[in-house]
């Protein structure tokens, strides 16, 4: 399992970057979601995978019994998932608004703020 997960993370990162670099809005959304997923999975794996042992301290002991899964990455992950979810939903609503007011799904049409206005 520990050998497969890094590969999955790598594939997710590259696929998401590929999608983000596309011009279509929908692929942008998919790319952002996948990028967030890849990051979260990375955070999860970086805390070392321990199966079966949770870091719960028994009533008559002072520390949890080894081996236990590190709870800190799990807490980080939970926070990151929630924040990522918020941002992703904001992005989706934003892209929908952009689609409604511009009537296009092509990111290449969105270059007016970069242009130098000559004859205003």
């Amino acid at each position, binding site marked *: 399992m520990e050998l497969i997960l890094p590969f999955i993370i790598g594939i997710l990162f590259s696929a998401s970057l590929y999608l983000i670099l596309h011009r279509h809005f929908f692929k942008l959304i998919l790319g952002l979601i996948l*990028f967030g997923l890849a*990051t*979260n999975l990375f955070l999860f794996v970086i805390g070392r995978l321990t199966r079966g042992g949770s870091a719960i301290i028994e009533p008559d002991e002072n520390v949890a019994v080894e081996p236990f899964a590190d709870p800190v*990455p799990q807490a980080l992950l939970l926070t*990151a998932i929630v924040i990522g979810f918020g941002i992703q939903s904001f992005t989706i609503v934003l892209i929908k608004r952009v689609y409604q007011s511009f009537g296009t799904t092509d990111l290449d049409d969105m270059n007016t703020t970069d242009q130098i206005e000559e004859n205003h």
Partner: protein
Amino acid sequence: MNHLLIMLPILIPLYGAILSLFFWRSVRAQQVIGILAQVCLLIASFMLLFDINENGIRTTQVGSWPAPFGITLVADLFSAMIVITGSITGMAVYLFSIKGLDKARQTFGYYPVLLVLQLGVSGACLTGDLFNLFVWFEVLLICCFVLIALGGTKPQLEGAIKYVTINFLATNFLLVGIGVVYGTLGSLNLAELAVLVRTPAAHPALINMAGMFFLIAFGIKAAIFPLFFWLPASYHTPPIAISAFIAGIITKVGMYALIRLFTLVFVTDQDLTIPLFTVLAGFTMVIGVLGAASQNDFRKILSFHIVSQIGYMLMGLALFTPLAIAGSIYFIIHNIMVKTNLFLISGVVAHRHGTFALKKLGGLYLQQPLLSVLFFISAFSLAGIPPFSGFWGKFMLAKAGFEIDSFVIVLVSLAVSLMTIFSMTKIWNEVFWKKKPVVDPLLEVMTEQEQRHNRLLHLPVVIMTVFILFIGLYAEPVVAMAQLAAEQLLNSELYINAVLKR
């Protein structure tokens, strides 16, 4: 009381935002709560600075979990100075938005979001925990997203989509960096990390890699070359009250995080970081100022200048001597104020003439001499002409560069100063000096009420100019404090001992 003092810059905007959400329907009530919160925040941050100045670094453990297990809040001189500058600009922007922002945007939650944004700024400056830093950055970024898109005009939406996408990527880079740090060192407390990286057991290569992730993440947020392209594409799109605050402070908070991390934690491989920062600083300065020179829009020129000025702050970090870091700190303080003020001035101009395009503007020197003087002071401060504030920051940076024989970067920075004067002269010539090309009789005559509005809009600009003149003409205490702050930053033992109570 000491613990409360550190919490206050976080609690006041938080409670202010919550309270104003209760009065969603009444803009007047939100304005009253907003001004109370701004005044309290200003007082609280000054009290915090005086306290730290007397007693050294202050820490508090949230929820009484001892460091390094709980979340620590740390206030040293550097963070307190940024918090104060943030609250001064917050105050000015708040005063500006009462008359300078349209009613529709004000009714859709502008005041609560502004307060939460200030909450994020204070939190990011005061936290002593890596993951907590990420969370505060998210707080302020989400508010920036909302503020940039607030109102939903076409340019705003377009700017917002660029801003959101690139910042989402930056956030994830930050998370990956945090993951690498936790995976190699097993801690997230900045003070404990600072201890751990200095032990021989640390993996220098992995820590370097994490450092580069942080450099990319905060480099995007601080708009460092070559990661700055989102900035001139989005910062000029929202109404000026919003641009002024975001442009003034958000990139500098990214810079704050970079300086904090690369003076405290990622200091083990300076053979790599210092040349890298030097090159990045030089390019950031030059490309930013060249971009500004090619623009024809008041706000876009100012946006590109943000990039250019970020280069100076990075230059201090690249030189890495106490004087250079002090120069960076002074420069950040000066730049937050001056940049906000210049944006506010462009807002006053646009409020009177309805455009930001340099070609259409003109003749303001005769119409609004007071505004011209205010612009003149801010522009010369930005360019670094003595005795205004920018000069002292650049002087410290240049002196520090000469002391360690880094002539190239100093020469680049001085040349960029000249180019900055060029852009400021361009604005001066086009907006204030030349005759107005097309005189629109409708715009020339102002009603009694419009004139009163326009005079009220001058108020925040005057306040900011007073502060800019203060730190320029009476620079001694600010420079001394910046030097103390730099010593605190470079002497990591002080920070570590204050947090871990050794």
